[in-house]
Protein backbone atom coordinates (compact mmCIF):
# COMPACT_ATOMS: atom_id res chain seq x y z
CA UNK A 1 0.00 0.00 0.00
CA UNK A 2 2.20 2.73 -1.26
CA UNK A 3 1.26 6.36 -1.14
CA UNK A 4 3.25 9.54 -1.04
CA UNK A 5 1.58 10.58 2.19
CA UNK A 6 2.55 7.37 3.88
CA UNK A 7 6.10 7.72 2.63
CA UNK A 8 6.45 11.26 3.89
CA UNK A 9 5.02 10.33 7.23
CA UNK A 10 7.34 7.38 7.55
CA UNK A 11 10.36 9.49 6.67
CA UNK A 12 9.38 12.24 9.08
CA UNK A 13 8.75 9.78 11.91
CA UNK A 14 12.07 8.17 11.13
CA UNK A 15 13.91 11.47 11.26
CA UNK A 16 12.37 12.36 14.59
CA UNK A 17 13.17 8.97 16.04
CA UNK A 18 16.65 9.14 14.59
CA UNK A 19 17.25 12.37 16.40
CA UNK A 20 16.45 10.67 19.64
CA UNK A 21 18.77 7.79 18.81
CA UNK A 22 21.49 10.37 18.24
CA UNK A 23 21.02 11.76 21.74
CA UNK A 24 21.50 8.29 23.14
CA UNK A 25 24.51 7.51 20.96
CA UNK A 26 26.52 10.69 21.34
CA UNK A 27 27.98 9.43 24.57
CA UNK A 28 29.20 6.27 22.90
CA UNK A 29 30.79 8.25 20.12
CA UNK A 30 32.75 10.14 22.72
CA UNK A 31 33.67 7.21 24.91
CA UNK A 32 34.10 4.54 22.31
CA UNK A 33 34.78 6.45 19.16
CA UNK A 34 37.29 8.87 20.55
CA UNK A 35 38.59 7.20 23.67
CA UNK A 36 38.33 3.53 22.78
CA UNK A 37 36.43 2.75 25.97
CA UNK A 38 33.93 0.02 25.24
CA UNK A 39 31.28 1.24 27.63
CA UNK A 40 28.51 -1.23 26.98
CA UNK A 41 26.88 0.00 30.14
CA UNK A 42 26.01 3.26 28.40
CA UNK A 43 22.34 2.33 27.85
CA UNK A 44 22.13 1.33 31.51
CA UNK A 45 23.20 4.86 32.40
CA UNK A 46 20.51 6.14 30.06
CA UNK A 47 17.92 4.14 31.99
CA UNK A 48 19.36 5.55 35.19
CA UNK A 49 18.89 8.99 33.70
CA UNK A 50 15.34 8.08 32.72
CA UNK A 51 14.55 7.09 36.29
CA UNK A 52 16.16 10.29 37.44
CA UNK A 53 13.77 12.21 35.23
CA UNK A 54 10.90 10.09 36.55
CA UNK A 55 11.79 10.87 40.14
CA UNK A 56 12.20 14.56 39.33
CA UNK A 57 8.86 14.54 37.60
CA UNK A 58 6.81 12.55 40.08
CA UNK A 59 8.32 13.74 43.35
CA UNK A 60 9.28 17.31 42.53
CA UNK A 61 6.88 18.00 39.71
CA UNK A 62 9.66 19.00 37.37
CA UNK A 63 9.36 18.94 33.64
CA UNK A 64 11.28 15.83 32.53
CA UNK A 65 13.72 17.77 30.38
CA UNK A 66 14.49 20.09 33.24
CA UNK A 67 15.02 17.07 35.46
CA UNK A 68 17.33 15.62 32.85
CA UNK A 69 19.34 18.82 32.65
CA UNK A 70 19.58 19.08 36.41
CA UNK A 71 20.83 15.53 36.53
CA UNK A 72 23.70 16.24 34.19
CA UNK A 73 26.19 17.59 36.75
CA UNK A 74 25.49 14.59 38.98
CA UNK A 75 26.07 12.22 36.11
CA UNK A 76 29.17 14.16 35.17
CA UNK A 77 30.68 13.45 38.57
CA UNK A 78 29.58 9.85 38.33
CA UNK A 79 31.37 9.61 35.00
CA UNK A 80 34.58 10.92 36.48
CA UNK A 81 34.44 8.38 39.26
CA UNK A 82 33.73 5.51 36.90
CA UNK A 83 36.51 6.56 34.58
CA UNK A 84 39.06 6.88 37.37
CA UNK A 85 38.23 3.38 38.54
CA UNK A 86 38.39 2.07 35.02
CA UNK A 87 41.69 3.79 34.37
CA UNK A 88 43.35 2.69 37.55
CA UNK A 89 42.30 -0.91 37.24
CA UNK A 90 42.46 -1.58 33.55
CA UNK A 91 43.71 1.06 31.21
CA UNK A 92 46.89 1.61 33.09
CA UNK A 93 47.70 -2.05 32.92
CA UNK A 94 46.75 -2.42 29.30
CA UNK A 95 44.05 -4.88 30.24
CA UNK A 96 41.17 -2.91 29.00
CA UNK A 97 39.91 -4.93 26.09
CA UNK A 98 38.62 -7.99 27.85
CA UNK A 99 38.49 -7.04 31.50
CA UNK A 100 37.30 -3.54 30.99
CA UNK A 101 34.46 -4.99 28.98
CA UNK A 102 33.51 -7.34 31.75
CA UNK A 103 33.74 -4.49 34.23
CA UNK A 104 31.12 -2.58 32.28
CA UNK A 105 29.03 -5.71 32.00
CA UNK A 106 29.04 -5.90 35.76
CA UNK A 107 28.00 -2.26 35.94
CA UNK A 108 24.99 -2.97 33.74
CA UNK A 109 23.91 -5.56 36.23
CA UNK A 110 24.47 -3.42 39.24
CA UNK A 111 22.52 -0.50 37.79
CA UNK A 112 19.66 -2.66 36.54
CA UNK A 113 19.24 -4.64 39.69
CA UNK A 114 19.48 -1.62 41.95
CA UNK A 115 16.72 0.05 39.94
CA UNK A 116 14.75 -3.17 40.09
CA UNK A 117 15.03 -3.40 43.83
CA UNK A 118 14.14 0.23 44.27
CA UNK A 119 11.36 0.68 41.75
CA UNK A 120 10.15 -2.78 40.89
CA UNK A 121 9.18 -3.89 37.44
CA UNK A 122 6.15 -1.69 36.99
CA UNK A 123 6.37 0.56 33.98
CA UNK A 124 7.02 4.18 34.79
CA UNK A 125 6.22 7.19 32.67
CA UNK A 126 6.17 10.94 32.99
CA UNK A 127 3.38 13.41 33.16
CA UNK A 128 3.96 16.50 31.10
CA UNK A 129 1.40 18.74 29.51
CA UNK A 130 2.76 18.52 26.02
CA UNK A 131 3.45 14.81 25.90
CA UNK A 132 0.23 13.95 24.09
CA UNK A 133 -0.05 17.05 21.97
CA UNK A 134 0.70 17.27 18.30
CA UNK A 135 1.76 19.98 15.93
CA UNK A 136 0.30 20.29 12.47
CA UNK A 137 2.67 21.51 9.80
CA UNK A 138 0.69 21.36 6.63
CA UNK A 139 0.24 17.76 5.61
CA UNK A 140 2.59 16.54 8.32
CA UNK A 141 1.62 15.85 11.91
CA UNK A 142 4.43 16.09 14.40
CA UNK A 143 3.79 14.53 17.76
CA UNK A 144 5.48 16.56 20.48
CA UNK A 145 6.41 13.35 22.18
CA UNK A 146 8.88 12.79 19.35
CA UNK A 147 9.51 16.31 18.15
CA UNK A 148 10.81 17.64 21.43
CA UNK A 149 13.37 14.88 21.92
CA UNK A 150 14.43 15.51 18.36
CA UNK A 151 14.95 19.20 19.00
CA UNK A 152 16.81 18.58 22.22
CA UNK A 153 18.96 15.97 20.57
CA UNK A 154 19.89 18.38 17.80
CA UNK A 155 20.80 20.96 20.37
CA UNK A 156 22.95 18.51 22.25
CA UNK A 157 24.70 17.43 19.06
CA UNK A 158 25.43 20.99 18.13
CA UNK A 159 26.76 21.79 21.58
CA UNK A 160 28.99 18.78 21.56
CA UNK A 161 30.27 19.57 18.12
CA UNK A 162 31.08 23.14 19.10
CA UNK A 163 32.75 21.93 22.25
CA UNK A 164 34.98 19.54 20.39
CA UNK A 165 35.94 21.90 17.64
CA UNK A 166 36.08 25.31 19.31
CA UNK A 167 37.18 24.93 22.89
CA UNK A 168 40.62 24.09 24.23
CA UNK A 169 39.41 21.14 26.23
CA UNK A 170 37.32 19.89 23.36
CA UNK A 171 40.25 19.91 21.03
CA UNK A 172 42.31 18.29 23.72
CA UNK A 173 39.79 15.45 23.74
CA UNK A 174 40.17 14.95 20.02
CA UNK A 175 43.90 15.19 20.39
CA UNK A 176 44.17 12.62 23.13
CA UNK A 177 42.68 10.03 20.86
CA UNK A 178 45.25 10.75 18.23
CA UNK A 179 48.47 11.52 20.01
CA UNK A 180 49.12 11.29 23.74
CA UNK A 181 52.59 12.69 23.66
CA UNK A 182 51.78 15.77 21.68
CA UNK A 183 48.97 16.48 24.10
CA UNK A 184 51.33 16.29 27.03
CA UNK A 185 53.66 18.69 25.33
CA UNK A 186 50.76 21.09 25.03
CA UNK A 187 50.32 21.09 28.76
CA UNK A 188 47.26 18.92 29.23
CA UNK A 189 47.22 15.69 31.17
CA UNK A 190 45.81 12.92 28.97
CA UNK A 191 44.20 11.21 31.90
CA UNK A 192 42.36 14.34 32.95
CA UNK A 193 41.24 14.98 29.43
CA UNK A 194 39.95 11.46 29.04
CA UNK A 195 38.17 11.69 32.36
CA UNK A 196 36.53 14.88 31.18
CA UNK A 197 35.41 13.32 27.93
CA UNK A 198 34.04 10.22 29.60
CA UNK A 199 32.27 12.32 32.19
CA UNK A 200 30.63 14.35 29.43
CA UNK A 201 29.55 11.13 27.77
CA UNK A 202 27.89 9.96 30.97
CA UNK A 203 26.37 13.39 31.54
CA UNK A 204 24.59 13.12 28.19
CA UNK A 205 22.88 9.97 29.42
CA UNK A 206 20.97 11.97 31.98
CA UNK A 207 19.37 14.04 29.27
CA UNK A 208 19.00 11.10 26.90
CA UNK A 209 17.19 9.22 29.64
CA UNK A 210 14.77 12.08 30.13
CA UNK A 211 14.01 11.97 26.42
CA UNK A 212 13.56 8.22 26.56
CA UNK A 213 10.92 8.34 29.24
CA UNK A 214 9.11 11.00 27.28
CA UNK A 215 8.81 8.74 24.28
CA UNK A 216 7.49 5.73 26.15
CA UNK A 217 7.20 4.01 29.50
CA UNK A 218 10.32 2.43 30.96
CA UNK A 219 11.35 -0.33 33.27
CA UNK A 220 14.84 -1.37 34.31
CA UNK A 221 15.66 -3.79 31.50
CA UNK A 222 14.63 -1.50 28.63
CA UNK A 223 18.25 -0.44 28.20
CA UNK A 224 19.31 -3.80 26.82
CA UNK A 225 17.44 -3.16 23.59
CA UNK A 226 19.65 -0.18 22.94
CA UNK A 227 23.05 -1.79 23.50
CA UNK A 228 23.18 -3.01 19.96
CA UNK A 229 21.63 0.08 18.42
CA UNK A 230 24.02 2.59 19.93
CA UNK A 231 27.09 0.67 18.91
CA UNK A 232 25.64 0.14 15.47
CA UNK A 233 25.19 3.90 15.16
CA UNK A 234 28.65 4.66 16.47
CA UNK A 235 30.22 2.28 13.98
CA UNK A 236 28.05 3.34 11.10
CA UNK A 237 28.78 6.99 11.73
CA UNK A 238 32.46 6.46 11.81
CA UNK A 239 34.07 6.29 15.17
CA UNK A 240 34.43 9.60 16.83
CA UNK A 241 32.58 11.76 14.39
CA UNK A 242 29.76 13.73 16.00
CA UNK A 243 28.28 14.68 12.69
CA UNK A 244 28.63 11.09 11.59
CA UNK A 245 26.71 9.92 14.63
CA UNK A 246 23.86 12.27 13.83
CA UNK A 247 23.78 11.20 10.22
CA UNK A 248 23.95 7.52 11.11
CA UNK A 249 21.17 7.90 13.69
CA UNK A 250 18.93 9.61 11.18
CA UNK A 251 19.65 6.98 8.57
CA UNK A 252 18.94 4.21 11.03
CA UNK A 253 15.77 5.89 12.23
CA UNK A 254 14.46 6.39 8.72
CA UNK A 255 15.39 2.86 7.68
CA UNK A 256 13.62 1.41 10.68
CA UNK A 257 10.60 3.58 10.04
CA UNK A 258 10.39 2.71 6.35
CA UNK A 259 10.79 -1.00 7.00
CA UNK A 260 8.20 -0.77 9.74
CA UNK A 261 5.68 0.93 7.51
CA UNK A 262 6.12 -0.95 4.28
CA UNK A 263 7.47 -4.38 5.10
CA UNK A 264 6.33 -4.97 8.59
CA UNK A 265 7.72 -3.73 11.88
CA UNK A 266 9.06 -7.17 12.65
CA UNK A 267 11.93 -6.62 10.29
CA UNK A 268 12.89 -3.12 11.34
CA UNK A 269 15.49 -4.13 13.89
CA UNK A 270 16.95 -6.82 11.68
CA UNK A 271 17.34 -4.38 8.85
CA UNK A 272 19.36 -1.96 10.92
CA UNK A 273 21.62 -4.64 12.22
CA UNK A 274 21.88 -6.25 8.84
CA UNK A 275 23.10 -2.94 7.47
CA UNK A 276 25.60 -2.78 10.29
CA UNK A 277 26.96 -6.19 9.39
CA UNK A 278 27.27 -5.17 5.76
CA UNK A 279 29.03 -1.93 6.63
CA UNK A 280 31.43 -3.77 8.90
CA UNK A 281 32.24 -6.15 6.14
CA UNK A 282 32.61 -3.59 3.41
CA UNK A 283 33.70 -0.33 5.02
CA UNK A 284 34.56 -0.69 8.69
CA UNK A 285 35.48 2.92 9.02
CA UNK A 286 31.81 3.72 8.75
CA UNK A 287 30.27 6.38 6.60
CA UNK A 288 32.19 9.33 7.94
CA UNK A 289 35.11 7.71 9.67
CA UNK A 290 38.63 8.91 9.66
Amino acid at each position, binding site marked *: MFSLDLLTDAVVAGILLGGFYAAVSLGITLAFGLLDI*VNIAHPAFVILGAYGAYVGNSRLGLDPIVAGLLGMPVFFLLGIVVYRVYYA*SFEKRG*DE*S*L*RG*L*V*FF*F*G*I*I*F*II*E*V*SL*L*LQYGVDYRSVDAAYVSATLELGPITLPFRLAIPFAVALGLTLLLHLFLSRTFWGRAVKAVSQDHLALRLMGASPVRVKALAFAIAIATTSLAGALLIMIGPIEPSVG*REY*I*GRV*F*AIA*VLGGMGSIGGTLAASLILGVLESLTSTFYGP*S*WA*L*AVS*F*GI*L*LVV*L*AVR*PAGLFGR
Partner: protein
Amino acid sequence: MSGRVLLAVAVALVLAAVALTRVLENQYYYFATYVILQYVVLATAWNILGGYTGYVNFGSAAFFATGAYTAAVLIKAVAAPFPVLLAAGGLVAGLLGLGIGYLTLRLRGVFFAIATLALAVVLQTLVVNWGYVGGSRGIYTLRPARVPFFDNYVEFLFVVMVVLALGALATAWWIERSWIGRGLVAIRDNEEAAECMGVPTLRLKLVATTVSGALMGVAGAPFPYYLTYMEPTSAFNLDYAINSLAMPMIGGTTTWVGPLVGAVLLGAAQQVATVTISSALNLLIVGLVVVAFVFLAPEGIVGLFRRWRARARA
Protein backbone atom coordinates in the same frame (compact mmCIF):
# COMPACT_ATOMS: atom_id res chain seq x y z
CA MET B 1 49.27 -34.30 32.62
CA SER B 2 49.42 -36.80 29.88
CA GLY B 3 46.67 -37.26 27.40
CA ARG B 4 46.27 -40.89 28.26
CA VAL B 5 45.62 -40.18 31.94
CA LEU B 6 43.06 -37.56 31.05
CA LEU B 7 41.34 -39.91 28.66
CA ALA B 8 41.11 -42.53 31.38
CA VAL B 9 39.64 -39.96 33.77
CA ALA B 10 37.11 -38.91 31.14
CA VAL B 11 35.95 -42.45 30.44
CA ALA B 12 35.70 -43.11 34.15
CA LEU B 13 33.54 -40.02 34.60
CA VAL B 14 31.16 -41.09 31.86
CA LEU B 15 30.82 -44.54 33.38
CA ALA B 16 30.27 -42.99 36.78
CA ALA B 17 27.54 -40.77 35.35
CA VAL B 18 25.78 -43.73 33.81
CA ALA B 19 26.08 -45.67 37.04
CA LEU B 20 24.63 -42.73 38.90
CA THR B 21 21.50 -42.82 36.78
CA ARG B 22 20.88 -46.35 37.91
CA VAL B 23 21.04 -45.32 41.52
CA LEU B 24 19.82 -41.77 41.94
CA GLU B 25 16.11 -41.21 41.39
CA ASN B 26 16.02 -37.57 42.34
CA GLN B 27 15.51 -35.77 39.04
CA TYR B 28 16.35 -32.37 40.40
CA TYR B 29 20.07 -33.10 40.44
CA TYR B 30 19.97 -34.23 36.84
CA PHE B 31 18.26 -31.09 35.66
CA ALA B 32 20.50 -28.82 37.67
CA THR B 33 23.67 -30.59 36.62
CA TYR B 34 22.50 -30.57 33.01
CA VAL B 35 22.44 -26.79 33.08
CA ILE B 36 25.88 -26.59 34.68
CA LEU B 37 27.38 -29.01 32.16
CA GLN B 38 25.75 -27.06 29.36
CA TYR B 39 27.59 -24.01 30.61
CA VAL B 40 30.84 -25.96 30.77
CA VAL B 41 30.49 -26.51 27.05
CA LEU B 42 29.48 -22.91 26.35
CA ALA B 43 32.23 -21.44 28.53
CA THR B 44 34.88 -23.70 27.01
CA ALA B 45 33.66 -22.89 23.53
CA TRP B 46 33.68 -19.16 24.25
CA ASN B 47 37.15 -19.36 25.67
CA ILE B 48 38.65 -20.86 22.55
CA LEU B 49 37.88 -17.63 20.79
CA GLY B 50 37.88 -15.25 23.72
CA GLY B 51 40.61 -16.47 26.00
CA TYR B 52 42.98 -18.10 23.58
CA THR B 53 42.59 -15.67 20.71
CA GLY B 54 41.45 -12.52 22.44
CA TYR B 55 38.28 -11.95 20.39
CA VAL B 56 35.21 -11.31 22.52
CA ASN B 57 31.97 -12.94 21.40
CA PHE B 58 28.82 -11.23 22.67
CA GLY B 59 26.50 -13.39 20.68
CA SER B 60 26.91 -16.80 22.26
CA ALA B 61 23.15 -17.01 22.40
CA ALA B 62 23.00 -16.86 18.60
CA PHE B 63 25.11 -19.97 18.20
CA PHE B 64 23.38 -21.77 21.03
CA ALA B 65 19.96 -20.99 19.58
CA THR B 66 21.13 -22.03 16.11
CA GLY B 67 21.91 -25.46 17.47
CA ALA B 68 18.61 -25.57 19.33
CA TYR B 69 16.50 -24.52 16.37
CA THR B 70 18.33 -26.77 13.93
CA ALA B 71 17.47 -29.64 16.23
CA ALA B 72 13.87 -28.47 16.54
CA VAL B 73 13.49 -28.32 12.76
CA LEU B 74 14.90 -31.82 12.35
CA ILE B 75 12.69 -33.15 15.10
CA LYS B 76 9.61 -31.63 13.53
CA ALA B 77 10.43 -32.54 9.95
CA VAL B 78 11.81 -36.04 10.17
CA ALA B 79 11.86 -36.98 13.87
CA ALA B 80 15.60 -37.32 13.50
CA PRO B 81 17.50 -39.53 15.93
CA PHE B 82 19.46 -37.86 18.67
CA PRO B 83 23.04 -38.14 17.30
CA VAL B 84 21.87 -36.52 14.09
CA LEU B 85 20.51 -33.59 16.10
CA LEU B 86 23.87 -33.10 17.77
CA ALA B 87 25.81 -33.33 14.56
CA ALA B 88 23.47 -31.05 12.67
CA GLY B 89 23.38 -28.48 15.44
CA GLY B 90 27.14 -28.38 15.56
CA LEU B 91 27.49 -28.25 11.80
CA VAL B 92 25.09 -25.39 11.21
CA ALA B 93 26.43 -23.35 14.12
CA GLY B 94 29.96 -24.02 12.97
CA LEU B 95 29.14 -22.75 9.50
CA LEU B 96 27.58 -19.70 11.08
CA GLY B 97 30.79 -19.09 13.00
CA LEU B 98 32.78 -19.48 9.82
CA GLY B 99 30.55 -17.03 8.01
CA ILE B 100 30.58 -14.36 10.66
CA GLY B 101 34.30 -14.82 11.07
CA TYR B 102 34.92 -14.36 7.41
CA LEU B 103 32.87 -11.18 7.37
CA THR B 104 34.43 -9.50 10.33
CA LEU B 105 37.67 -11.03 11.46
CA ARG B 106 39.76 -8.83 9.31
CA LEU B 107 38.78 -5.97 11.58
CA ARG B 108 39.82 -5.07 15.07
CA GLY B 109 38.56 -7.29 17.82
CA VAL B 110 36.04 -4.86 19.17
CA PHE B 111 34.23 -4.74 15.82
CA PHE B 112 33.96 -8.49 15.92
CA ALA B 113 32.29 -8.19 19.30
CA ILE B 114 29.76 -5.71 17.96
CA ALA B 115 29.14 -7.88 14.92
CA THR B 116 28.33 -10.85 17.14
CA LEU B 117 25.82 -8.70 18.96
CA ALA B 118 24.26 -7.69 15.65
CA LEU B 119 24.22 -11.31 14.57
CA ALA B 120 22.19 -12.33 17.61
CA VAL B 121 19.57 -9.69 16.84
CA VAL B 122 19.32 -10.56 13.15
CA LEU B 123 19.04 -14.27 13.84
CA GLN B 124 16.42 -13.78 16.49
CA THR B 125 14.35 -11.68 14.11
CA LEU B 126 14.66 -14.36 11.43
CA VAL B 127 13.53 -17.07 13.83
CA VAL B 128 10.66 -14.95 15.12
CA ASN B 129 9.41 -14.54 11.57
CA TRP B 130 9.81 -18.17 10.62
CA GLY B 131 6.42 -19.81 10.83
CA TYR B 132 7.73 -23.38 10.55
CA VAL B 133 9.34 -23.21 13.98
CA GLY B 134 6.36 -21.38 15.36
CA GLY B 135 7.89 -17.93 15.34
CA SER B 136 7.24 -16.22 18.63
CA ARG B 137 4.45 -18.65 19.44
CA GLY B 138 7.10 -21.21 20.12
CA ILE B 139 7.43 -24.83 19.21
CA TYR B 140 6.48 -27.86 21.24
CA THR B 141 8.88 -30.81 21.02
CA LEU B 142 7.58 -33.64 23.10
CA ARG B 143 10.16 -36.05 24.43
CA PRO B 144 10.09 -39.58 23.08
CA ALA B 145 8.16 -41.76 25.48
CA ARG B 146 10.91 -44.28 25.85
CA VAL B 147 14.66 -44.19 25.61
CA PRO B 148 16.77 -47.35 25.53
CA PHE B 149 18.76 -48.25 28.61
CA PHE B 150 17.71 -45.29 30.76
CA ASP B 151 14.74 -45.05 33.09
CA ASN B 152 13.66 -41.74 31.73
CA TYR B 153 14.65 -39.13 29.22
CA VAL B 154 16.12 -36.75 31.75
CA GLU B 155 18.79 -39.23 32.77
CA PHE B 156 19.62 -39.73 29.13
CA LEU B 157 20.02 -35.99 28.57
CA PHE B 158 22.21 -35.78 31.63
CA VAL B 159 24.61 -38.44 30.37
CA VAL B 160 24.62 -36.85 26.92
CA MET B 161 25.64 -33.54 28.45
CA VAL B 162 28.40 -35.23 30.48
CA VAL B 163 29.80 -36.64 27.25
CA LEU B 164 29.48 -33.29 25.48
CA ALA B 165 31.18 -31.43 28.31
CA LEU B 166 34.07 -33.85 28.31
CA GLY B 167 34.27 -33.61 24.54
CA ALA B 168 34.43 -29.82 24.68
CA LEU B 169 37.13 -29.91 27.32
CA ALA B 170 39.06 -32.43 25.28
CA THR B 171 38.83 -30.20 22.22
CA ALA B 172 40.10 -27.22 24.17
CA TRP B 173 42.88 -29.28 25.70
CA TRP B 174 43.95 -30.52 22.31
CA ILE B 175 43.83 -27.08 20.71
CA GLU B 176 45.83 -25.60 23.55
CA ARG B 177 48.64 -28.07 23.00
CA SER B 178 48.68 -27.99 19.26
CA TRP B 179 50.22 -25.60 16.80
CA ILE B 180 46.76 -24.03 16.45
CA GLY B 181 46.80 -23.07 20.09
CA ARG B 182 50.25 -21.59 19.88
CA GLY B 183 49.20 -19.59 16.88
CA LEU B 184 46.11 -18.31 18.68
CA VAL B 185 48.16 -17.19 21.65
CA ALA B 186 50.48 -15.35 19.30
CA ILE B 187 47.48 -13.60 17.82
CA ARG B 188 46.19 -12.66 21.24
CA ASP B 189 49.48 -11.22 22.37
CA ASN B 190 50.22 -9.20 19.31
CA GLU B 191 48.40 -9.83 16.11
CA GLU B 192 50.54 -7.65 13.92
CA ALA B 193 53.73 -9.25 15.11
CA ALA B 194 52.23 -12.67 14.54
CA GLU B 195 51.34 -11.73 10.99
CA CYS B 196 54.85 -10.53 10.38
CA MET B 197 56.21 -13.80 11.67
CA GLY B 198 54.19 -15.71 9.17
CA VAL B 199 51.41 -16.99 11.42
CA PRO B 200 48.34 -17.53 9.21
CA THR B 201 46.22 -15.33 11.43
CA LEU B 202 43.04 -15.21 9.39
CA ARG B 203 42.94 -18.96 8.91
CA LEU B 204 43.59 -19.64 12.57
CA LYS B 205 40.94 -17.16 13.66
CA LEU B 206 38.46 -18.79 11.32
CA VAL B 207 39.28 -22.17 12.83
CA ALA B 208 38.70 -20.74 16.29
CA THR B 209 35.34 -19.14 15.39
CA THR B 210 34.15 -22.27 13.62
CA VAL B 211 35.10 -24.60 16.43
CA SER B 212 33.73 -22.23 19.05
CA GLY B 213 30.46 -21.81 17.19
CA ALA B 214 30.12 -25.53 16.52
CA LEU B 215 30.58 -26.42 20.17
CA MET B 216 27.96 -23.88 21.21
CA GLY B 217 25.58 -25.30 18.65
CA VAL B 218 26.12 -28.79 19.96
CA ALA B 219 25.33 -27.55 23.47
CA GLY B 220 22.09 -26.13 22.15
CA ALA B 221 20.94 -29.20 20.23
CA PRO B 222 19.38 -31.06 23.19
CA PHE B 223 17.63 -27.89 24.38
CA PRO B 224 14.26 -28.56 22.67
CA TYR B 225 13.97 -31.88 24.46
CA TYR B 226 15.16 -30.44 27.74
CA LEU B 227 12.37 -27.86 27.83
CA THR B 228 9.78 -29.42 25.48
CA TYR B 229 8.59 -25.90 24.71
CA MET B 230 10.95 -23.46 23.11
CA GLU B 231 10.42 -19.93 21.94
CA PRO B 232 12.89 -17.34 20.69
CA THR B 233 13.13 -15.24 23.83
CA SER B 234 14.30 -18.17 25.93
CA ALA B 235 16.57 -19.65 23.26
CA PHE B 236 18.26 -16.30 22.56
CA ASN B 237 18.33 -15.24 26.18
CA LEU B 238 21.04 -12.76 27.13
CA ASP B 239 21.96 -15.08 30.02
CA TYR B 240 23.83 -17.34 27.65
CA ALA B 241 25.93 -14.50 26.35
CA ILE B 242 26.65 -13.16 29.81
CA ASN B 243 27.44 -16.46 31.45
CA SER B 244 29.64 -17.83 28.68
CA LEU B 245 31.69 -14.67 29.09
CA ALA B 246 31.65 -14.43 32.88
CA MET B 247 32.54 -18.05 33.54
CA PRO B 248 35.89 -18.10 31.77
CA MET B 249 36.66 -14.69 33.26
CA ILE B 250 36.12 -16.06 36.71
CA GLY B 251 37.84 -19.35 36.12
CA GLY B 252 40.74 -18.12 34.07
CA THR B 253 41.06 -17.63 30.35
CA THR B 254 44.44 -19.05 29.52
CA THR B 255 43.84 -22.76 29.94
CA TRP B 256 41.09 -25.29 29.37
CA VAL B 257 40.67 -25.67 33.13
CA GLY B 258 39.57 -22.07 33.63
CA PRO B 259 36.17 -22.28 31.91
CA LEU B 260 35.50 -25.58 33.66
CA VAL B 261 36.14 -24.08 37.07
CA GLY B 262 34.19 -20.94 36.25
CA ALA B 263 31.23 -22.83 34.84
CA VAL B 264 31.04 -25.22 37.74
CA LEU B 265 31.34 -22.52 40.37
CA LEU B 266 29.17 -19.84 38.84
CA GLY B 267 26.70 -22.34 37.42
CA ALA B 268 26.34 -24.14 40.72
CA ALA B 269 26.01 -20.84 42.56
CA GLN B 270 23.22 -19.78 40.21
CA GLN B 271 21.41 -23.09 40.56
CA VAL B 272 21.64 -22.95 44.32
CA ALA B 273 20.55 -19.32 44.40
CA THR B 274 17.51 -20.11 42.25
CA VAL B 275 16.19 -22.49 44.87
CA THR B 276 17.33 -20.69 47.96
CA ILE B 277 17.76 -16.92 47.96
CA SER B 278 15.46 -16.70 45.02
CA SER B 279 15.02 -13.03 44.36
CA ALA B 280 16.44 -10.10 42.47
CA LEU B 281 19.48 -10.35 44.72
CA ASN B 282 20.39 -13.41 42.70
CA LEU B 283 21.18 -11.24 39.70
CA LEU B 284 22.98 -8.66 41.77
CA ILE B 285 25.28 -11.32 43.12
CA VAL B 286 26.31 -12.41 39.65
CA GLY B 287 27.13 -8.85 38.72
CA LEU B 288 29.09 -8.19 41.88
CA VAL B 289 31.00 -11.46 41.73
CA VAL B 290 32.00 -10.84 38.15
CA VAL B 291 33.14 -7.30 38.88
CA ALA B 292 35.00 -8.46 41.98
CA PHE B 293 36.86 -11.06 40.00
CA VAL B 294 37.72 -8.63 37.31
CA PHE B 295 39.37 -6.42 39.89
CA LEU B 296 40.87 -8.87 42.30
CA ALA B 297 41.66 -11.84 40.17
CA PRO B 298 42.22 -10.76 36.60
CA GLU B 299 43.55 -14.15 35.71
CA GLY B 300 40.70 -15.94 37.33
CA ILE B 301 40.82 -18.67 39.85
CA VAL B 302 43.43 -20.52 37.89
CA GLY B 303 45.62 -17.45 38.05
CA LEU B 304 45.07 -17.11 41.79
CA PHE B 305 45.98 -20.70 42.28
CA ARG B 306 49.14 -20.37 40.28
CA ARG B 307 50.26 -17.34 42.25
CA TRP B 308 49.55 -19.05 45.52
CA ARG B 309 51.50 -22.09 44.43
CA ALA B 310 54.41 -20.03 43.23
CA ARG B 311 54.55 -18.26 46.56
CA ALA B 312 54.33 -21.53 48.43
CA ARG B 313 57.27 -22.87 46.48
CA ALA B 314 59.46 -19.81 46.89
